[in-house]
């Protein structure tokens, strides 16, 4: 190999402490070096031209530049050499400035060190191989999983930028939890009023393919090239024929057969139903577990009244394949259910609060439904048991959150705000009512948030008690709430008409299953992990898969919307080019020596190691070896160090390249 060595003075920066001419002279004597020179400013145009000239004249195969840190100018010198015809990965830089001249004073010692540093890289470059950047095609379509406010925002952003989006939502309607809310903090905007226009925009958008009542079954492929199988569940209604007239729902004889999920169990719904009047799409669904036809074969009233013959009892789940380039996970949250749980469940219940036992102990979403104008009581503030107006309500914050013993050590972020909101809504509707809030801390960090809480206390007269509640029990139709006021230092007992619990915000129950389908990492609570908590909040460590909203951590609406737009922007960056070019510093397997133990697969943080069958001519599998998906590999080399036989190597930092650097010690010092 013919190596050229170029030592830069960097003006006085290196030149003052390192005797560059003698470094160049010493390097000229290294075996393999056919050209060595020094110059004032190697990175400048004339400097780069010196290198290009030497490459041409001396027929160089590789170049070592002794100058500043590679973090500074590696790209510069690689491009210069590439222009002159050398593969950029045959160019190495010795750090003679940050790691030598700037940190030492003694000229002879610094010069000797500079010679050593260059020598080590000359030895390394002898084992460098030319590497070609990896080009991966990009399918410019996105998949958004989850049709809540985050999913809707992300879909609109990507679709408005001109790309197709497939939006998959597992419920019969999009809208998520935000459609269940009555008003949102801190403005007390009507939730449905700001949400429904967006929902309609999604439905009508020419580039958004809305697949409601559907779930993601399987995901294969990698960044820019995902192949997703979606299960479109059977509504028993042909959506292309249905006009949303609602006659079938009206006529369905099984009126009160099931608890409405949308109303959080506070109301019933028929077997044939639309989850809420503003549902998008406005197409009903038959709940086959309670429908008379599916149980006994009789009825068929809905089919009879349907003017469009849209009812199809034979309809089956369909499996649809979609090819996409980016996936955004926006599956949102679920509220922790706090009734008593079996002993082996790591999430413990709060049996002492009587949730599930007493009808008037409810959670936050149930309160939203009661307060909502479209809810089971049309917005009248009445309690579930006897439909009377509660005169005293107790709100309890931190139910489950910030409590190691119950399984959730984190803060659910939104409860302080929505509890204040609930208390305010109650006071606005029941002027002579008393509202008490048991709290540990008040977390109101967002814009106008603290002012909102102050309003609840100062204008609406909500009484805040700092302390926890130990027990709730029923006596003479009242709920006795036993707690403490730690500021006053007394025990407190309140005979409430209704109790609202601000329960912990957790990930959806099937969140870990979805995460495994997507091969993204998730934490012990089921929240999907971001790639870097500070600098990569919307990416996951799996390339091409982004996250938005509460599926990652408890989050309120403005933050979820911001995150959704950010995730959409990341997807759009991906779609910005037809081909994705990646650094070729990736791992490669020597299939002849690989024994198929797959320890490399275990240590890979990016799921880049796959299994590959080696077959003989007859098609029999001889052995199963590791195979690196160079689209996913990020080039850390942990696999290389873990493999006992070194059958997997990191190109650019292979064993022989590192050995060469260590070996140069024998002649050095």
């Amino acid at each position, binding site marked *: 190999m013919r190596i050229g060595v170029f030592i830069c003075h960097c003006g006085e920066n290196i030149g003052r402490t390192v005797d560059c001419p003698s470094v160049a002279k010493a390097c000229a004597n290294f075996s393999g070096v056919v050209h060595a020179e020094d110059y004032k400013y190697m990175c400048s145009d004339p400097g780069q031209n010196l290198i290009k000239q030497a490459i041409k004249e001396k027929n160089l195969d590789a170049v070592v530049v002794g100058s500043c*840190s*590679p*973090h500074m100018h590696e790209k510069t010198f690689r491009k210069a050499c590439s222009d002159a015809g050398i593969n950029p990965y045959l160019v190495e830089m010795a*750090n003679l*400035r*940050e*790691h030598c001249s*700037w*940190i*030492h*004073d*003694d000229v002879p*010692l*610094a010069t*000797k*060190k500079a010679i*050593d*540093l260059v020598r*080590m890289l000359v030895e390394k470059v002898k084992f460098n191989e030319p590497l070609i950047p990896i080009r991966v095609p990009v399918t410019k379509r996105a998949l958004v999983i989850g049709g809540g406010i985050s999913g809707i925002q992300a879909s609109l952003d990507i679709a408005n930028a001109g790309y197709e989006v497939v939006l998959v939502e597992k419920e019969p309607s999009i809208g998520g939890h935000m459609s269940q809310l009555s008003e949102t903090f801190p403005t007390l905007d009507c939730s449905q009023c700001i949400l429904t226009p967006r929902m309609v925009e999604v439905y009508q958008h020419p580039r958004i393919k809305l697949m409601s009542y559907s779930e993601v079954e399987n995901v294969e492929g990698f960044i820019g090239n995902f192949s997703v199988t979606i299960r479109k569940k059977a509504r028993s209604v042909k959506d292309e024929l249905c006009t949303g007239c609602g006659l079938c729902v009206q006529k369905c004889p099984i009126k009160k057969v099931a608890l409405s999920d949308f109303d959080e169990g506070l109301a019933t719904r028929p077997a044939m139903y639309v989850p809420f009047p503003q549902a998008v799409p406005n197409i009903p669904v038959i709940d086959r577990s309670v429908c008379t036809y599916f149980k006994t074969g009789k009825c068929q009233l809905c089919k009879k009244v349907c003017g469009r013959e849209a009812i199809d009892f034979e309809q089956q789940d369909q499996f649809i394949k979609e090819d996409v380039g980016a996936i955004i996970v926006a599956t949102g949250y679920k509220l922790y259910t706090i009734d008593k749980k079996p002993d082996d469940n790591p999430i413990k219940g709060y049996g002492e609060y009587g949730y599930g036992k007493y009808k008037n102990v409810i959670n936050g979403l149930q309160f939203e439904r009661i307060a909502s104008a479209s809810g089971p009581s049309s917005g009248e503030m009445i309690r579930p048991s006897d439909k009377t107006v509660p005169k005293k309500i107790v709100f309890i914050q931190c139910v489950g959150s910030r409590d190691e013993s119950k399984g959730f050590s984190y803060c659910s972020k939104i409860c302080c705000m929505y509890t204040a909101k609930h208390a305010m809504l109650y006071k606005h509707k029941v002027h002579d009512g008393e509202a008490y809030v048991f709290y540990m801390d008040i977390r109101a960090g967002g814009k106008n948030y603290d002012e909102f809480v102050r309003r609840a206390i100062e204008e609406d007269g909500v009484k805040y008690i700092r302390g926890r509640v130990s027990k709730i029990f029923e006596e003479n139709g009242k709920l006795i709430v036993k707690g403490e006021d730690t500021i006053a230092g007394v025990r407190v007992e309140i005979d409430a008409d209704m109790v609202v619990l601000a329960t912990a915000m957790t990930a959806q129950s099937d969140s870990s299953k979805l995460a495994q389908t997507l091969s993204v990492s998730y934490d012990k609570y089921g929240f999907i992990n971001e*790639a870097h908590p500070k600098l990569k909040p919307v990416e996951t*460590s799996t390339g091409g898969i982004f996250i938005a909203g509460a599926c990652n951590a408890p989050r309120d609406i403005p933050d979820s919307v911001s995150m959704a737009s950010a995730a959409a922007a990341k997807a759009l960056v991906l779609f910005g080019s037809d081909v994705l070019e990646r650094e070729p*510093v990736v791992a490669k397997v020597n299939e002849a020596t690989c024994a198929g133990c797959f320890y490399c697969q275990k*240590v890979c*943080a*990016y799921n880049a190691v796959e299994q590959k069958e080696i077959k003989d001519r007859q098609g029999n599998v001889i052995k199963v070896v590791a195979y690196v998906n160079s689209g996913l590999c*990020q*080039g*850390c*080399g*942990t696999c*290389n*160090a*873990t493999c006992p036989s070194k059958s997997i190597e*990191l190109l650019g*930092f292979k*064993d022989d390249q*590192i*050995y060469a*650097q*260590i*070996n140069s*010690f*024998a*002649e*050095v*010092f």
Partner: protein
Amino acid sequence: METEKFEPKIVAFVCNWCTYTGADLAGTSRLKQQTNARLIRVPCTGRIDPVFIIKAFEKGADGVLVSGCHPNDCHYNTGNFHARRRWIFFRQLLDFVGIDSSRLYFSWVSASEGKKWVDVVDGVINSVREKGPFNGYKKLNKEIEIPVK
């Protein structure tokens, strides 16, 4: 004949994203340190195989320093966790076999810890200087009589 004062030879394996950048910061801040260390850049501490360390000692290093990103900050998420587990075994193995594991140093130095890097390097150099040269392999190398040019 004057005997030369012993100057330790230190090999440092550093990860590109944190420690190497931290060392760059030490340079940009002109923080002075001793000249005994030679850095070998790897993408991640996960890439560091204990054979490198044995080879460094065989080739005449008196001390070896391995440095990377703090746990949870690894640029590649988990590389330093796997490396750490390896080191726990390797140190005990070295000790058991009679190579003083205190000649092998580990540190977490982030990209913003230029001062810490200087303290670590100088600390390692001073500490090894006090211990003296590592002679174990010198005798064994003579056995093979590698001719030196």
